[in-house]
């Protein structure tokens, strides 16, 4: 039994057009998976079915052996946290502090522990000076940082990031990725939806969606040998690999190419 187990799952918003079509996806505990795919391919919809926000029309989604239903959803939410694509959808509180606390409120975290975690994770994302501010008065990237802190503070075993870093500056992004890597090493299951190939390369496994289906799924080293898969799904190969592929004269550029491949995966 996989940690996340999606079987023959389809989803529709309107009752007519199927948005997710016959999805089968198994993710093991401790995996780091990046989900890629064109705009409208169904990534966010898929993520929402994983936390019981959207209910499949057909098939099942199970987390740690429990099939998600309206009855099991509250318990499932304690195991899986999601940072939404639009941070505003996550804000309910009057202050940044309230918003970081919000996710913890259903988790039976003691008040002391909660305050500690708020302080720790606000600092982790560089927002410790903003705790009393209204979330609405933050810049775009600051909102994303707060949304991220709220999920990190829940310390759930599975974390989903839906384009959670799209408005961070490169430095903040790198900082966060370092921390996610640490969480991954501690055994967390990470699902990262992203359009940034450099970010996806930090994962072990890539799942590429296209028109509501899983178009490709495999280890990054394998998928990156198939440029056609990227071309057909609105993706672009990492720059170093594009270079390696276009330096075709093996005798002259063999070593350079080998280095470009190595450096792409040495992160």
């Amino acid at each position, binding site marked *: 039994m996989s940690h996340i187990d999606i079987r023959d799952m389809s989803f529709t918003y309107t009752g007519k057009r199927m948005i997710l079509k016959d999805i089968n996806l198994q993710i093991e505990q401790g995996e780091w998976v990046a989900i890629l795919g064109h*705009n409208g391919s169904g990534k966010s919809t898929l993520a929402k079915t994983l936390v019981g926000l959207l209910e499949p029309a057909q098939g099942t989604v199970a987390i740690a052996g429990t099939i998600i239903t309206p009855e099991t959803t509250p318990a499932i939410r304690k195991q899986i946290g999601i940072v939404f694509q*639009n941070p505003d959808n996550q804000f309910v509180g009057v202050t940044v502090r309230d918003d970081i606390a919000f996710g913890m409120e259903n988790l039976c975290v003691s008040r002391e522990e909660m305050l500690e975690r708020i302080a720790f994770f606000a600092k982790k994302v560089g927002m410790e000076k903003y705790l009393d501010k209204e979330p609405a008065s933050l810049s775009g990237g600051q909102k994303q940082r707060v949304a991220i802190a709220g999920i990190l503070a829940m310390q759930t075993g599975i974390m989903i990031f839906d384009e959670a870093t799209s*408005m961070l500056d490169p430095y903040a992004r790198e900082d966060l990725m370092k921390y996610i890597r640490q969480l991954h090493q501690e055994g967390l299951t990470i699902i990262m939806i992203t359009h940034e*190939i450099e970010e996806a390369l930090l994962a072990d496994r890539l799942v590429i969606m296209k028109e509501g289906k899983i178009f490709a799924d495999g280890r990054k080293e394998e998928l990156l040998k198939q440029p056609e898969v990227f071309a057909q799904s609105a993706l672009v190969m990492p720059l170093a690999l594009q270079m390696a592929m276009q330096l075709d004269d093996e005798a002259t550029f063999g070593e350079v190419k080998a280095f470009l491949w190595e450096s792409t995966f040495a992160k």
Partner: protein
Amino acid sequence: MGIHFREVSFHYPQNQLTFYQAIADITLQIAKQDEFICLIGRTGSGKSTLAQHMNALLLPTEGSVEIFGSLITNKRDKKINYNLLRKHVGLVFQFPEYQLFEETVEKDIMFGPLNFHVPPEQAKQIASETIKLVGLDETYLKRNPFNLSGGEKKRVSIAGILAFDPDILVLDEPTSGLDPQGKIQMMELFKAIQAKTGKSIIIITHDMDLVYEHASRVIVLHDGSLIYDESPEVLFRRGDLEQFHLQYPNTIKVLSALRDRFGLDLDIYQKNLPDALLAIKKAVAR
């Protein structure tokens, strides 16, 4: 002159007693034509605040902004037609959600043209042309903009500004949320618009590759102050960018790794893949 900032500072009210200074003492000029400017800086450095001064959505707390001949200051001036300024300078918001409000995509895109007195039939025509420019087909016109994916919303919000054909385009993170090929197409669209009309374009972004490849001028904000205003060639040769939480473009990073690994005599300052490949071939041949 298109837009002229003179010693502009802006304070967000914090509560009754205090305020937050988001930009400080900014002086800068943007020509009406032929500028391709990228505005960069770390999270919270004041980019969106500055952008909202360019079409008088925010009024400077101190200093003035001259927009197509109208002098904008702290006080609203009855003689200035603020609505018309928005026809001069079209601003795409960072979050499309702040810009979409009609019940169909079509009405959203038609809003600008109608606001500037384009006849309804023509506005409808414009909407079906513009939706295709941003990579969506006409079936999207009847959709509710709130039921779109993130990237689809972004595209619609860009279409909504292109539709009324402003004289200058200010785009706040227009490629965040777009898929990689969509991002390339969107940049090609902006380039094509500029090639055809000469309109100046200002783009806020965290994507250093985009900056290096496309900008003719880069403005860097840090803690609300303008610290650099120069070409990308000059900017990315600086050694101190990390202190401002900025990064170097991927071409430079990959080429410098190659140079160091193989001790190549390699010019690492290349803006795109074809140039980078040429540089590698030259260096290896040496």
